[in-house]
């Protein structure tokens, strides 16, 4: 078969330079991780085919001389045969490959959070002023006994009979979702670690091990154990506040992962404890978990290795039968269940999976919370909801549907400059986030973005306090699972039933 380098696929964006404004400082050449720009002797040239609209060049152009526009050259419009479908056929016919990309799905599915409205107090009960009266966001993640066991001491004072199971204390119900060193840069992880420490929350190593530089942040870190077992050893398990077993991820339920060998440099090699340059393959399943009792086996293997001092979290993707699955996970001994909805992000996943597998976090969460309550075991584990929590409003709604806390991933990367271009898999991220190229990583200053992450979570926390105040409660636990404070709009009966909420007006 003859191979042809000719491609049908035209540039998606045009990088336009206003040569009158341009002072030829060449910052765009330096900033673009994709190699879009070059110097043509007297002016900057742009190779449009390389542009992904990541926004780095125009952000850093001192003259405002660059505009990135959608290529106006059309593929004839056809609602059935969309541009994306046509391009994928060309792409796959040219390469024979599985189409992959980074970040979450770009499909326009219904976003349930946008069809849920919040309640507020009027007259019959008072709203509370969150700026001047206490408004508690503190959240504990971990197994709670169903009842308190107390003895009375000689003075008749109650004293705890048995110690509480280990808990993670969060000052606000946010955590940073798992993003491994390898999928993102060490500087990106450091920014989250700094923010987590300042905020009194936690970040998650993801499956790529714990870099030496992050060891001092142990009190603000959850370490993850995934099927590849990268960097997993006894001391690693004991180095954070909790251990998370990753079963699945919202963006790619049921499939494994694959960090290509070219990203495995010396530092990642040391952190993942694998040789330089080999593919880091995460098998689809954990090969010691083929059934629910095997999950129990791994949960308790970890509890034994950590002397029962660390809560064990289990992360799963939201799939069709999620309520029963989570019930099984809780009964298997998990202290925390992390549920990742289908719009969650990823460093790389086949589009066939990302765009078509899983269910929305709102529905999954509502069903899980209800199921655990029906079974009388909701106290046995905390629930973390994730899968594109885009604002504090999403967080409030998730908590009212039943989550103890929410995790953010993509939003944290957006703080660091991410424009959600979805090219994380290529390793060329101009913002220094999803790349291991030293010249790109260097530009992401952990201190600067640690502070911005701190700002974002602080602002979102204040917004949650505003909502709590409007609802007339002064503690997040009075919102958690309080679906009575939610109403749906533009939702069918089936959707309302799945969410466990009433339609607005009722």
């Amino acid at each position, binding site marked *: 078969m003859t191979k042809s380098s000719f491609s049908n696929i035209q540039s998606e964006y045009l990088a336009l330079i206003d040569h009158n404004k341009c002072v030829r400082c060449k910052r765009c050449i330096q900033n673009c991780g994709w190699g879009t720009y070059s110097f043509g002797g007297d002016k900057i040239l742009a190779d449009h085919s390389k542009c992904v609209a990541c926004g780095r060049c125009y952000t850093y152009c001192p003259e405002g001389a660059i505009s990135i526009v959608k290529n106006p050259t059309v593929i004839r419009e056809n609602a059935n045969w969309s541009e994306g479908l046509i391009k994928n056929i060309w792409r796959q016919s040219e390469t024979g490959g599985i189409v992959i990309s980074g970040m979450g799905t770009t499909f326009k599915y219904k976003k349930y959070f946008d069809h849920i409205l919040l309640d507020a*107090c009027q*007259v*019959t*009960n*008072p709203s*509370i002023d969150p700026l001047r*009266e*206490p408004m*508690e966001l*503190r959240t*504990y993640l971990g197994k*709670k*006994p*169903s*009842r*308190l066991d*107390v003895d*009375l001491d000689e003075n008749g004072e*109650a*004293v*705890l009979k048995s110690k*509480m199971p280990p*808990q993670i204390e969060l000052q606000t119900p946010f955590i940073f979702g798992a993003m491994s060193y390898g999928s993102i840069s060490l500087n990106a992880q450091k920014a989250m670690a700094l923010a987590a420490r300042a905020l009194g929350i936690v970040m998650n190593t993801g499956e790529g091990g714990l870099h030496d530089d992050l060891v001092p942040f142990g009190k603000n870190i959850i370490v993850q154990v995934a099927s590849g077992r990268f960097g997993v050893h006894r001391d690693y398990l004991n180095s954070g506040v909790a251990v998370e077993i990753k079963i699945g991820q919202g963006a790619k339920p049921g499939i494994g992962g694959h960090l290509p060998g070219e990203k495995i440099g010396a530092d990642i090699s040391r952190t993942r404890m694998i040789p330089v340059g080999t593919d880091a393959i995460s098998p689809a399943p954990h090969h010691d978990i083929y059934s629910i009792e095997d999950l129990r086996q791994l949960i308790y293997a970890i509890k034994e290795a950590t002397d029962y001092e660390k809560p064990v979290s289990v992360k799963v993707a939201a799939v069709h039968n999620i309520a029963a699955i989570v019930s099984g996970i809780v009964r298997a001994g998990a202290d925390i269940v992390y549920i990742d909805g289908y719009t969650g992000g990823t460093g790389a996943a086949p589009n066939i999976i990302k765009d078509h597998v899983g269910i929305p976090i709102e529905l999954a969460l509502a069903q899980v919370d209800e199921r655990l*309550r*029906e079974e*009388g075991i*909701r*106290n046995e584990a905390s629930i973390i909801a994730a899968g594109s929590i885009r604002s504090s409003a999403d967080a409030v709604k998730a908590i009212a549907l039943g989550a103890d806390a929410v995790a953010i991933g993509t939003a944290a990367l957006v703080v660091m400059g991410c424009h959600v271009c979805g090219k994380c898999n290529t390793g060329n991220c101009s913002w220094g986030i999803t790349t291991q190229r030293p010249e790109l990583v260097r530009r992401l200053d952990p201190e600067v973005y640690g502070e911005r992450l701190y700002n974002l979570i602080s602002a979102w926390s204040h917004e949650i306090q505003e909502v709590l105040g409007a*609802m*007339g*409660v*002064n*503690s997040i*636990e*009075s*919102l*958690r*699972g*309080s*679906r*009575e*404070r939610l109403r749906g709009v533009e939702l069918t009966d089936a959707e309302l039933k799945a969410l466990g909420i*009433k339609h607005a007006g*009722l």
Partner: protein
Amino acid sequence: MLRIKNKFNTERDISGCGLCGIINAKRVKTNGSDIKKAISIEHDRGNGLGGGFAVYGNYPDYAELYAFHIMYDNLPAKTDVEEYLKNNFIIEKEEPIPTFMTSKIYDHPYLHRYFIKPKSDRPDKLFHELGDDDFVVNSVMLINQNYDGAYVFSSGKNMGAFKGVGYPEDIADFYKLEEVEGYMWTAHNRFPTNTPGWWGGAHPFTLLDWSIVHNGEISSYGINKRYLEMYKYNLALRTDTEVITYILDLLIRRHKLPVRLALTVLASPFYQKIDKMNGDKKELFTALRQIYGSALLNGPFAIVFGYSNGMVAMNDRIKLRPLVAAAMGDFTYVASEEAAISAVCPSPDIVWSPKAGEPVIVEFEEKKIPQKGGLISL
């Protein structure tokens, strides 16, 4: 049309209110005239759509039996419920609850009372080993949920609730409470806001010996309800009072928490305060919040609740509802307004305003002086 159950299409039934309580720690009995007088001072806190009383020590002759007060919409309902009672209980005595026509209460359900105890060979014994109290709770929930036109509004021993739609002073006349004697009384004047009044929805709400009168709308109702449902409570009335009663039942009777600790769950201290406590206490209060966060009553409330050992009055943790207490000899009085107390006890030994979230607890046959939670040092 007369309504004894909440048939209104509302997720929950909320109301504003006034409340009073009188207890004699040595179980010296008084008739209902004082409590009527006190609650009538708070007339304007209600709107005539609900009033009621709970009295303890009023059935000394049947003190070992559960006294069921049941309201019926129609006589077939009575026949059905009585068949259930006969199958499961030994009925020592049954009679209409004495009522007296007043011009104010002209439309009322048929009111009947039964002094009963569960049969030792009742049919449910074939399936499980429930204690008598649990069986009574189940029976009350079963009747209230499944028997149309019937509603059990009192089920404790040597105590009873007397309530209905109307102002409390008229309800007192209707039940002729001047002729009833007890050593502890609570009273309630209701201002429902999203339903017209209904007989069952008047306070006190009772279950076994628990009786609750309550003022304020709980903002955390949604999660309190779902929390209780996990423990198989059926929240048929959709009132805050029902929620509070069941939470106390869960914490004190089923989880066996000391009363004071259980009350702490309802209005727990803020973490800011807990963090400053010493080691053991901090651990206890942190655990309390971790475990019972969903039972925290968030939002405005003041409650007076009676139980077989005494009476408790408390309000929410940021004091959004009023509560005043006073003591005179063996008597302790609590009310929404001091004037209510003053009307029946013009010169008490002490008067105080309990602090936010700190309960006033008065137990029988123990210390004469009430434990004055929130009493600013004298």
